[in-house]
């Protein structure tokens, strides 16, 4: 590890950057989009197979 000091700085920065990007942006967005998509699929199923009954 010691001999790689020149690249560890950027590597470490890259890992942090990706970590933040994933947890703060990508995954929340994916989660939201998939919930919306789920709702959309149900909506379409209502159109195809009729509205929910009780």
């Amino acid at each position, binding site marked *: 590890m010691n001999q790689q000091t020149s690249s*560890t700085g950027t590597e470490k920065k890259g890992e942090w950057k990706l970590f933040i990007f994933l947890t703060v942006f990508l995954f929340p967005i994916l989660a939201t989009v998939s919930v919306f998509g789920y709702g959309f699929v149900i909506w379409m199923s209502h159109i195809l197979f*009729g509205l929910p*009954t009780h």
Partner: protein
Amino acid sequence: MKKLFSMIARSWGVFSKPSKHISLGVITCGAFLAGIIFWGGFNTALEATNTEAFCISCHSMEENNYKEIQSTIHWSNRSGVRATCPDCHVPHKWSDKMAAKARASKDVFGWLLGTVDTKEKFEAKRLHLAQNEWARFKANGSLECRNCHDYKSMDFTKMSEKAQVQMRGAAERDQSCLDCHKGIAHHLPEMDTTAISELGKMAKNLEGHSFEVGKEYYSLVQTPLYKDEKETEYLGVLTPATKFKVIAESGNRLEVELVTWHKAKGYGRVLYFDFAKNIVQATLSKEASQDESLFVRGDKREDDLTGLPWEQVTFTLWVDKKGYEENLQNIWDYAKGAYQTTCSVCHTQPAEGHFDANTWVGMFAGMQGFVNLDGDTHDVILKYLQNHSSDYSKDAH
């Protein structure tokens, strides 16, 4: 572009390998915290889009739905329970709620495109939007209403008499509330009553047929009556399904004879089908009803029930050559079909012979708020019922 690809490739490298510098503990803690924050935020956002304030940020510009509800029981009542827009419009089951939210993307597009941003545009689309809601309530048996109201918890004995009969029946059938309670929160959409009625179409189809002097015909729609063959000012109107005899023809008018009754007190402007029966054949202007040159008097009798004198009168007037029906049964067939479709929505329609002709008038007037009928169809159904009422039908009790 190339730069972007190489960045993604590099990121994928970092993503797919175990991390070298961030400890597992930090990653799981970070992810866990982010998850909590996300879930909180997601629900807050969901809540926020499920408030009345959010809905009316759009729906008040049409100044309709929001304003209208403020004069109803769901805005202010003795119990202090308010029904807000989402209470009635957004399903509670999670999956259906998400579907409703996804469906609301249609609202957002509509908002961006301004599909209903003026009163005129809203009114034009209103019936369509209401039909979407009716379909939803019909399918789920008015589930949203029943989150608050439950047949099982209703004390029918505490209800008004009017409500009791219907509500007991509804509970037995487990009927959808909206079958009878349309327009509970907003004004009902304007239904198109200017469109040409079915009777209007029947009349149009018969137009151009020749007439035989001495023969009897029936009006299909409200028909203006004139003094002679040229006069343009009309003296009154015949209701649909009124019998007249053609006695002469001239140009595009027919001279007709109308045998009717009127009350021999006051002006006698309304002409009736029969002695002491509130079955309207025509209404006349004040002048025409007094113009002795237009009619001859016949029998005179007093109605024991009201003490009013009635008199048979035979009018001779002119009508335009339009489509008239020779066979009264064709009109009754139409009326019967219309009666069965419009009046069986909420209850089984009462048998025609269940009431007498005069009682039907009040019964029918009471139902007027429930149905949207054009004038001709309204008149003809009422007349159909009266003519088949216990006064005239042999098999009635």
